[in-house]
């Protein structure tokens, strides 16, 4: 009987393997000639996850032997796991702090891949026109100081919206999140009380609301909870058809998150020598105020040459041909001046001291 169970199990596992091997070859066709499959594992930010998962799926079609598994566990997780060396690359929407970088086993490079917007999405039944929010009102909503949708400070800037007499349920990220980092960075820039009471970080102490895991979780929670408001990457709000608020930017205009408004936010801001740039509360005309570059984190000098070469090739593809996939998912492609710097950076990646991409 025991042998029987064992054999049933082994059989099912064996057929499982056989099944997937068969599947792979079927999908692979003749494919590339560079031998065995290369499996790359990455983890981190949920902010660019819709784009990354699209990229990795498309890249797998172009290079069937390269399987890039990206898990969206949050930017904090991306930084933590690449530092601990449990993944081949990490991803974050906020640059690593020096104290974080010090824990890694080598020098980590930030490769900016795209620009996204943190949209303020909400679920208020019966409200069709986009809700307008000034920086002060936005901060007070997330501080829990404004807790009703028909609060007079909200109705004053939204005279035409039929805001109901309903409690506001704030939805925030329960995990270490770059989206939170970007959002709190913005709030701290525009609201002194936010800066002193809550501060800036990937995980902060939220004064009010419900916690959910990942951009996916926050978006899901907003959809499930009438009266809720939260901050998510624009792609999530668009894909799940949630309305997003028009935020008042530095120039005083109310701007809805969009590809153009995000591109405007990045215009005129140059990446620094580490390839970081903060583009929140951008001064440009028509700029959406909460936008951010998002980064893939890789070791400058990697250990496994085969994996490193595959990763460098993928990154090169992502910042060149791959940029075509950004717009349909509501991300902004890298501006030309940034893309040039990023390409130089990718060319500088090494494995065991040897450069990975020659010429190109």
């Amino acid at each position: 009987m025991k042998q029987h169970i064992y054999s049933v199990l082994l059989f099912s596992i064996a057929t499982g393997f056989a099944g997937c091997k068969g599947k792979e070859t079927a999908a692979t066709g003749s494919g590339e000639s560079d031998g065995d499959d290369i499996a790359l594992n990455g983890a981190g930010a949920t902010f660019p996850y819709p784009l990354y998962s699209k990229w990795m799926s498309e890249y797998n079609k172009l290079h069937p032997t390269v399987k890039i598994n990206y898990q969206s566990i949050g930017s904090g997780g991306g930084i933590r796991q690449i530092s601990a060396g449990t993944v081949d690359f990490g991803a974050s929407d906020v640059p690593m702090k020096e104290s974080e970088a010090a824990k890694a086993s080598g020098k980590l490079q930030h490769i900016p891949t795209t620009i996204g917007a943190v949209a303020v999405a909400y679920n208020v039944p019966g409200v069709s026109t986009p809700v307008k929010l000034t920086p002060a009102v936005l901060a007070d909503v997330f501080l829990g100081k404004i807790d009703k949708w028909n609060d007079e400070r909200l109705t004053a800037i939204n005279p035409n919206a039929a805001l109901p007499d309903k409690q506001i349920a704030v939805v925030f990220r329960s995990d270490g999140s770059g989206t939170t980092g970007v959002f709190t960075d913005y709030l701290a820039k525009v609201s002194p009380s936010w800066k002193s009471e809550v501060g800036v970080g990937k995980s902060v102490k939220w004064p009010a609301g419900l916690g959910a895991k990942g951009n996916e979780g926050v978006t899901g929670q907003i959809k499930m909870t009438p009266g809720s408001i939260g901050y998510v990457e624009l792609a999530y709000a668009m894909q799940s058809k949630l309305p997003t608020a028009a935020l008042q930017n530095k120039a005083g205009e109310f701007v809805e998150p969009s590809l153009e408004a995000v591109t405007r936010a990045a215009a005129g801001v140059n990446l620094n020598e580490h390839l970081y740039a903060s583009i929140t509360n951008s001064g440009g005309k028509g700029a959406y105020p909460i936008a951010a570059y998002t980064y893939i984190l890789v070791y400058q000098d990697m250990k496994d040459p085969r994996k490193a070469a595959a990763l460098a090739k993928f990154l090169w593809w992502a910042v060149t041909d791959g940029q075509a996939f950004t717009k349909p998912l509501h991300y902004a492609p890298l501006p030309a001046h940034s893309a040039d710097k990023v390409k130089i950076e990718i060319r500088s990646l090494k494995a065991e001291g040897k450069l990975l991409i020659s010429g190109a």
Partner: protein
Amino acid sequence: MAQASLPIEPEPRPGSSARARPGWLGRLGVGTSVGDGAFRVTTALVAATVVLALIAIFAELARASSLSLEAFGLDFITSQNWDPVRDEFGALPFIYGTLVSSLIALLLAVPVGIGTAIFLSELAPEWIAKPLGFLVELLAAVPSVVYGLWGIFFLAPVLREHVQPFLASTLGILPIFQGPHLGFGMLAGGIILAIMILPTISSVSREVLRAVPGIYREGALALGATHWEAIRTAVLPHARSGLVGGVILGLGRALGETMAITMVIGNRPEIDLSWFAPSYTMASVIANEFTEATGDLYLAALAEIGLLLLVVSVALNVVARLLVWRVGRLPSGARV
């Protein structure tokens, strides 16, 4: 050579035990026959791995949490400040969330569970008791994540639209039933836990009641007691410590339960009197933050929560088993 020949010694006769050597091998039983000795040693070593695994779990968690233990000491469990930005970690909100959600679970599951056990073991005819008992035990078989899924899409909306408005309008003067109706929160977590520990409580209670000798019941009935009086005066007193043990086992399960409650409790590290408000449990914070905690202290703080959880659940488990053993044996294979 001598070592290699040990396990393949052909068919030793029982009489060979006469050549038993003294010393540690003898104490382990090697003396009786070489095959038997090897057998005993092998199984003993394997059995010892169970003990080692348990010790290793404790040791590893203690090691992983040492930073936080040093940094915060006892403040860790009394501070309610969980602030990763400032590297300040107090676990009280999670301890509170865990305790209160488990308390709600007990409040709901104990009467239902023990009532079910009494019905199944004392009142129901066999043809009802068997299938019904089986169904209740199946509750324990449904995976936690499936309860979570059901909680998100069924329980939370029902609470938000019907139960919470009802509670607020009838018992709204109580602080536990005040605040906005979100669906997700402490109450949802407590209800999910109640469902999950119900089979533990009812199956242990059922075994305990069964272990009470029939003579007590019959004696009471013969003296003219009603069925309930017989149960109350003759059966329950004998079963009491076992019933308490079953409840504690249920509590132990509730404390360590992770996925389902993470999916419905709202995940906010704040102490709020209201059961409608979102809360957070010790297990949930580990599930949410363990892979992404940056900073050694943050990680150590999470590991310390794990250690606390481990110590408390293990202690409860031991106490419960002692209580149940006083009455009778645990049902074998009971998922506790």
